[in-house]
């Protein structure tokens, strides 16, 4: 557990500094842990439902990553988000939340599950619901892998507008997914 915490925290600190490789690495590892955590608690649901929740959690964690306090350990932060999203999911699917045990924080890294299914989320459909500028910014920077400068040139926006639009767009996507399954 301590080594997992140490590794993940190291990767997260680099990610918060803008290290793309470290961030991909830590998110990849967290998706395994989240999948294991949710599968163990949502045994009756389909694998696609579990994957939906894994993805919703990753996106929420991404747009709220500035709430990680480096003075605190990293795994409890992930665990708190995972548990919050689990309870929220159970509430909106009208299941009982009384039975969600308050497990130990270590539970978040108890099962590393790499048997991924496809989620029911359709990224293209979600992107359609963003405003054109925001959608373009996300497409260029997050999907086509252009740098912010290249995206600014292609989209006819300033670099800061690209950054703001990407940031805003990711928040909107996260909210759309959370709200989408609430209604």
């Amino acid at each position: 557990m301590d080594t997992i915490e140490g590794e993940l925290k190291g990767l997260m600190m680099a990610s918060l500094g803008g290290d793309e490789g470290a961030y991909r690495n830590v998110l990849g590892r967290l998706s395994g842990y989240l999948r294991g955590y949710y599968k163990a608690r949502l045994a009756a649901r389909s694998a696609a439902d579990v994957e939906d929740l894994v993805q919703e959690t990753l996106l929420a964690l991404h747009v709220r990553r500035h709430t990680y306090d480096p003075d605190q350990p990293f795994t409890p932060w992930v665990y708190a988000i995972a548990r919050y999203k689990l309870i929220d999911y159970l509430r909106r699917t009208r299941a009982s939340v009384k039975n969600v045990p308050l497990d130990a924080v270590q539970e978040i890294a108890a099962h590393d599950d790499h048997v991924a299914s496809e989620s029911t989320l359709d990224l293209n459909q979600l992107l359609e619901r963003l405003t054109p500028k925001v959608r373009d910014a996300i497409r260029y920077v997050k999907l086509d892998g252009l740098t912010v400068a290249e995206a600014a040139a292609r989209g006819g926006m300033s670099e800061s507008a690209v950054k703001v639009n990407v940031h805003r767009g990711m928040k909107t996507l996260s909210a759309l997914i959370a709200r989408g399954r609430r209604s």
Partner: protein
Amino acid sequence: MKTDDLVKMLSANVEAVEYREPQRMILISAGLGAVVALSAVILLLGIRMDLSELGPWMFVLVKSVFAGAIIGVSLANLTRVARPGGERRVSIALGLLPFGGALLVATASLAIAPLSDWKAMIIGEYWLLCLVCIPLNAIVPFAAMIWAMRQLAPTNLTLAGAMAGRAAGGISAFAYALHCTDDSFPFIALWYSLTIALCAVLGGVVGRPLLRW
């Protein structure tokens, strides 16, 4: 969508983030709320007229210290509950400390006062104004702090709402102290505490629907 594709998308060109952002946002929102609350008291109620004397000054100071303690503790707790899992780091004892202190001073001041003064000391003159104005004037600071909290990630929404309500109540009480002419320790311990607690309860009630993410 495949989770691996999402991970690739999230990490592509990831921007560095400032992790002191939560404290900053909460402080800025509380500060803006305080400006509005102070302006409302100064413009609508007016500052008390007797500030040329020492006694009234002292009581403005006492009320400000009490409200300031509430604000300080509430903001410290609010910054904690703003982060996932932060509710475990909230100190209830610290939260009750300003109320306990006020109660202690109030009891002492009643103990040395004649029984016939007690009613006037406790009920005061403008308790109703206090009871109405403090929660009303807390609305803008509360909204500002809720806006900040919505950009953050509280995982106990009721507690987060209550902390924001309490901080807003403290800010509003701080502003109301400029107008309030009820100068007695029991009045502060009863009516200020009661209205601030009311703000906390109301904040807790609306916390879940307002702060969900």
